[in-house]
């Protein structure tokens, strides 16, 4: 769907992107992660053809990115904004028409969206009469009204209250199910695991990690497991196929241990070792969260 190859972008005095490449597949929800100032917005602006890269290429659906692709992309910038003095309905239709929609189509779709998001009464209102959260909702509608194949959202959840953020999140997922590819940037990790299929991590203008979320997390596992058992406390001997990292005592005679496998052993060996001694409630591999990976990676590459 989107192939970004060796993008370099230099601004006077600092490098925004150095040799960044990434692949977004059709139908994915792709997260662009990184601390503030890493270069996410620069990359997004290049994909939107707002600025051009110094070198490198972007391919959209196999074609080199060009003006005709604009109508197939929907973009929600980080800095939200609409005409303050224009009526919302009129404004939405104007923005959709700039994306190549006919007036009739734009009106019909807008009515549908306004009904869906309970905004019917806003049509004749001016932006300045709305609350900040309402403005964001309107802007989200403006972004997706022309039913783009690729929806680019820069920090989509900032500025929403939890209720509206949930609504928008569900709308994004619904659009994704209908076939839209979603690319969004965020520096907040909570949303990543439940939303993203794949991510790229950008720090200080460099891409330092990318791939499918599951694969990344699994590659960051460190043979660590969580075990809960009920019964008398076990004293682990040296013959155990693992070493204990931490131990806690729960209610009802239950115990939690966090353990790390010895080299050459598997989870089966753990069960083998424990089964004769106690009743096992749970055994779970500890997979680091994206948040942990993010922090770890950014720390490794240095974050001032």
């Amino acid at each position, binding site marked *: 769907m989107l192939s970004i190859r060796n993008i370099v972008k230099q601004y006077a005095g600092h490098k925004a992107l150095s040799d960044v490449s990434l692949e977004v597949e059709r139908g994915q929800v792709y997260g662009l992660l990184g601390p503030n100032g890493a270069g996410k917005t620069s990359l997004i602006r290049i994909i939107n053809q707002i*600025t051009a890269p110094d070198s490198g290429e972007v391919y959209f659906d196999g074609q080199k990115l060009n003006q005709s692709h604009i109508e197939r992309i929907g973009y929600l910038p980080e800095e939200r*904004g609409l005409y303050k003095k224009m009526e919302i309905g009129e404004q939405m239709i104007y923005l959709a028409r700039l994306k190549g929609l006919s007036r009739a189509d734009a009106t019909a779709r807008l009515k549908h969206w306004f009904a869906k998001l309970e905004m019917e009464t806003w049509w004749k209102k001016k932006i300045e009469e709305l609350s900040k959260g309402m403005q964001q909702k309107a802007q989200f509608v403006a972004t997706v009204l022309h039913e783009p194949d690729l929806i680019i959202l820069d920090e989509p959840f900032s500025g929403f209250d939890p209720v509206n953020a949930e609504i928008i999140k569900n709308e994004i997922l619904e659009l994704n199910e209908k076939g839209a590819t979603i690319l969004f940037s965020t520096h907040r990790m909570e949303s990543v695991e439940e939303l993203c299929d794949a991510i790229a991590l950008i720090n200080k203008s460099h891409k330092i990690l990318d791939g499918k979320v599951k694969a990344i997390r699994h590659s960051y596992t460190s043979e660590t497991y969580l075990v809960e058992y009920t019964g008398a406390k076990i004293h682990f001997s040296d013959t155990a196929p693992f070493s204990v990292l931490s131990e806690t005592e729960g209610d009802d005679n239950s115990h939690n241990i966090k353990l790390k496998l010895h080299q050459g052993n598997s989870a089966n060996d753990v069960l083998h070792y424990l089964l004769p001694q106690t009743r096992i409630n749970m055994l779970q591999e500890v997979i680091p969260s994206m948040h942990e990976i993010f922090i770890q990676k950014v720390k490794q590459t240095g974050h001032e």
Partner: protein
Amino acid sequence: MNKVLLIIQREYITRVRKKAFIVMIFVVPLLILGMGAVIKMVASNAEEPDSASVIKVKDESGLFAGKLHNGKKIQFLPTTQSLPEIKKELINDENLLALVIPKNFNSKDSIQILSKKKPGFALTAGIEKQMNAIVVNDGMIKNHIDTAVLHSIKSDISLNAIEVTEKGDNKSNIGANIAVSIACAILIYLSLFIYGAQVMRGVIEEKTSRIIEVIISSVKPFQLMLGKIIGVGLVGLTQFGAWIILSIISTKIAGQTVGSTPGGMMNALAVLQTIHFGKILVCFLFYFLTGYLLYSAIFAAVGSAVDSETETQQFMFPITLPLLFTYILSVSVLFQAPNSALAVWLSIIPFTAPVAMMVRLPFDPPVWQLALSMVLMVAGFLFTTYVAARIYRVGVLMYGKKASFKELSKWFFYKE
């Protein structure tokens, strides 16, 4: 191109729909009409005081008896009452005046006009005029000068300017032509700033409301700038068009109601016919459009470089200086020396030509100068649009950066 049309449409409609625009369309012609009416009223008032006055004439010289003519609202009444008696009457009657002429009135202050209220200038001037005429007449008779002969040799010359051209003599009224083209120059000067500033404000609005990024993800910055400039320009043309139509209608109506003085109207019409409306209108539209395109592009670039209107000051001054300079010269010096080197240069340089050439127009500048000026105007606006577009595309995405001229020139050389 379709998208530029959409932008033009939005810029035009949102502005034309504004109450201020509609009010302006009607207020300005009304204002002009009102001013005309006031001037007319003042002019007619000069001949007659507003209320009827009776003037008692106590003439001890006997020279003026029966010779003062009553006006529409002035009535002269000879009297032999004594001064104290007259004064008593004056105190009781506001509309009563008294003219007291002593036997020997040659000395300057000896003739007095008495009244409760200070008499109006028009009234005293009218009486003075009559009395002077009487005295002069009397003097001529005493000195045996034949007044009939004198009247016949009285001269009343007014110059009739005839332009000799190859097509034949052309009766023209230079004064009227100058007045119209100076008015056009002033109109151009004002509208360049009014509509240029509107473009600038539009750009700043888009930048501060942050909608700019949404829009330039749909269209190129240049398309947006072009659409805005053309849209606002059309608003200006609509405004002028409406004013012209309203003025024609209102003068027609005014002409019908003032139809009682055909002489004056005919005179005014005759003057109007000597004005080269066609040429002036064509030049006005040309210089307004090219001047507007030239300046509004610069204004758009300035708007893109700042975060608020207050920051525009440092750029506005150098930009407006050439035009302001020409404007001041135009209304004072240029039309007195329309073929001086200064005037010629100012009317050729694109930044000053819209005003300077309009002022020179009634003096028939050489065709090559007019042609050169027009070609340079077109080249000028293409140039400023090119430069402005390069600054604009960078400027609209720069937030919170204080722009200097040095910074702007750097933006100009940025790659895409």
